[in-house]
């Protein structure tokens, strides 16, 4: 049996299921007057069933890919990010059965969808493990860390709903600005997905030679029109555009090019949304958040940090240290990824202390939850792609 192909299909099924699930949770929120009357809504029941089907299918993707490659599929950007989205949905399902709230699904599933789409932009072929990753700790450490992060992410979803409901969008304020900024970031990720997909469908390729920061000659292929050239680049493909700027050796001009294209596409998307609906995105979402019970969202936000924090500590710090000691001979080496895991941990520690003793509940707590998610995403995206370190496998 071709497990690799089966695995890809199962992922597609789950992607579609989450889209359908979102639609049904939207219906559930629309027809039920409040969070508590949800139990009567058929929409929500279908929504959670479809979500579970999607989750099982994604679990199938995970297992079949594991069988195909012979190692836990968490070894590169695509695999890790996809696994993260799977656990996000898993955490949502868990929290859903505790609190029975469709609003959470309406916001959590689209985030999972965007994350899967983002993951799919990275090389998807199965890669063999480099020596450092050959250890059962890969499975143990990465899966536990991703699980912890995904539970913590649910807190951000609850926080977002809380904010979408409680921030006054009729008046100009810092809160309104930042909430819209969060929405814009999501659109930016879509911009990345759209531009990457468009250029990859068109089969765009431009080859360059350049000199890297250690003075070594290297080669690079762009899959997007090269706005920025690498240091001392020379163009090998003749029929493609010439870069506008040459970057110094420490800047990865390819990454910068991708970023600028994503930004460009994202801004266009955002302007289109604003032109069509004539309202900020946060205002578009507000009616869907209005039905959520603020107290409950606050509680979910706090509870998911409480559940996720120990899991994160275990996976991202303790297991990480044990493995680092086996593989790299030291349990801690101030590698950027390690430091950002520590920062995430310290941040949530601060969150808990502020909540417990300074009474930071409601809006403040919701903002902190959203900020925590931003830090997790920064560690996933920026630290891997921009800051070079031992964890830059993808």
């Amino acid at each position, binding site marked *: 049996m071709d497990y690799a192909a089966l695995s890809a299909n199962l992922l597609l099924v789950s992607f579609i299921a989450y889209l359908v699930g979102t639609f049904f949770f939207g219906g559930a929120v629309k027809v039920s007057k*409040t969070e508590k009357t949800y139990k009567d809504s058929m929409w929500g029941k279908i929504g959670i069933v479809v979500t579970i089907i999607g989750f099982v299918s994604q679990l199938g993707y995970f297992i079949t890919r594991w069988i195909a490659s012979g190692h836990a599929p968490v070894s590169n950007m695509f695999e890790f990010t996809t696994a993260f989205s799977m656990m996000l949905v898993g955490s949502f399902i868990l929290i859903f059965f505790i609190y029975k709230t469709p609003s959470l699904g309406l916001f959590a599933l689209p985030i999972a969808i965007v994350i899967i789409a983002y993951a799919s932009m990275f090389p998807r072929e*199965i890669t063999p493990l480099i020596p450092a990753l050959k250890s059962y700790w890969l499975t143990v450490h990465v899966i536990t860390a991703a699980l912890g992060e995904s539970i913590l992410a649910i807190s951000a979803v609850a926080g977002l709903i809380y904010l979408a409901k409680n921030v006054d969008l009729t008046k100009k304020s810092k809160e309104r600005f930042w909430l819209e900024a969060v929405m814009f970031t999501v659109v930016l990720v879509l911009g990345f997905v759209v531009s990457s997909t468009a250029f990859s469908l068109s089969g765009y390729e431009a080859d360059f030679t350049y000199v890297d920061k250690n003075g070594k000659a290297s080669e690079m292929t762009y899959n997007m029109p090269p706005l920025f050239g690498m240091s001392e680049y020379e163009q090998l493909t003749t029929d493609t555009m010439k870069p506008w700027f040459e970057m110094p050796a420490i800047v990865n001009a390819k990454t910068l090019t991708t970023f600028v294209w994503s930004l460009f596409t994202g801004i266009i998307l955002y302007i289109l949304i604003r032109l069509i609906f004539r309202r900020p995105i946060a205002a578009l979402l507000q009616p869907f958040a209005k039905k959520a019970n603020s*107290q409950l969202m606050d509680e979910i936000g*706090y509870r998911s940090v409480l559940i996720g924090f120990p899991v994160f500590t275990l996976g991202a710090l303790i297991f990480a240290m044990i493995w680092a000691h*086996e593989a790299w001979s030291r349990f801690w080496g101030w590698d950027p990824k390690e430091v950002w895991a520590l920062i995430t941990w310290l941040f949530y520690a*601060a969150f808990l202390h502020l909540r417990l003793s300074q009474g930071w509940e409601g809006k403040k707590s919701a903002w902190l939850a959203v900020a925590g998610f931003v830090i997790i995403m920064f560690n996933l995206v920026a630290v891997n792609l921009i800051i*070079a370190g031992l964890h830059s496998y993808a």
Partner: protein
Amino acid sequence: MSKIKCQCGHENPFGTVLCEKCGRPLTDEAKKSEMVDMRYEGSARRSQTYKKSVIDKIWNFFSSVKIGVSIIIAVLTTSAIGTIFPQKFYVPVSGNDPSEYLEYYERLYGTVGKLYYQLGFYDMYNSWWFKILIGMLGTSIIIASLDRVIPLYKSLTKQRTKRHPSFMKRQRIYGESDVSDSDESLKNAEKALKDLHYKVKVEDGAILAEKNRFGRWGPYVNHTGLIIFLLGVLMRGIPGFYVDETMWIREGETREIPGAPGYLLENVDFSVETYSQGEADEVFGEALEKNGAIVSEFKSDVKLYKEKEGSLPGSSDVEFMKEYPIIVNKPLKFDGYSIFQMDYKTGELKTMTFSLMNKKTEQSVGEFTVDLNEPAKEYDLGNGTSIELMEYFADYDGIVDGQPSSKSPIPNNPAFIFNMKTPEHPDGEKSFVAIRQTLEVEPNDYEAKFLSAETRDASGLTIRKDKTLYILLLGGIVFMIGVIQGSYWQHRRIWIQKGSGSEMIIAGHTNKNWYTLKKDLDKVKEVATLPAYTDKQDKEAVIDTTEGETK
């Protein structure tokens, strides 16, 4: 300081907010408030009571959570700054010359890089101020925990079943109303609470149902774990507790292990394997085609020896200990030491063979081989012909100040000054020979012509000994126990008691997860007739129930 006597007769320590026994508010502030602060049960905390002496002030500074959080934020922010550019230990600059580091940061990152270096951010995690921050964090953890855990423990053990109505009224969950048969209600409630696994105490028409009190100690347990961990880190400074050395060992070499006196290591064979496209084609074909060869394993087959007891250091009187293949993730372990496979170099030059040629006749008069690690002074080719190796540069780096120089002792780019003594030139002809380069002072009759080279692999190993690991692990385990204890178990209490006449009052408190506390209360209410309660913090609850029921 004097004790505070409550109306119930209990003597509370000075500074108490809520009576330890009956819960009556004792301070004016508490008396006025609608909801009392239950975080530490209104107990007398040292930091809230004594504020005069210097010790009080230091104590109060570190016991403040606000300060604690500020320290956390400071550590967090500075740690983030340390990741902007690579830290000192990840920079490919050898040696400890500060100017080379400055040059590196400036060359790659410009003025910002220079500033980064000058502010000490390039070695931030070892800077004195970062260490002070961590020290302050540790102090804060200890003091803040002690300030809270002792009074909290006292209050929770002294609490009485029957509380004063003024205490109940000031809880977040509270309800009061007339009930037809309050004794019946109490009895039913007691049973329902027991079914929900609460520990129920009954006293004089009052119920105290309590669950998971041990969850309350979670934070203090996890703080203890953190302190153990930090102590473990501190102990690495003790000599003998911590060894961290690296060594390069070539194939066939036997070397003393740095940091592990008395032990020797022989590198029998070093090998690198890659995923070959043939066998791995089916699964990894696409990836291998895209990325080229991917290394699957590198391995040093080593033999470990120990010097026999009583033998002189450096003597060859050794005892074979064991043979082991070291690979990444599988270090060699012995006597508290671990040797890790970290790095490798393939194709390091081992020997170079030259032929001495007569330039005119183009005839070889003999060959000689230079061992690049232990070169001989003189090579005798017979017939009155010999080569004197006048100077050797293992890693030739060009001419510095008119002299050829070597940048390392590793034969990456060997260069030689030969003195070729032949019957025609008994004093010798001098020649500078480097790879693809021969320099002569005057035109010579003979030349040393490069014939062949032999290479070998070198393995990069790290030697560690860390006696603190078990302390660190213990710290980690204690932390996990504490954090799970505090996060997954919530201390819930429900008070139900008879008021005046047929009135009943109920109140509830939990340190977290109010949702489940309310669910528990609702379950009790299904069995026992009890007053409806309100959650003073849920302003939308009314809308939910009224609107919800109209659907």
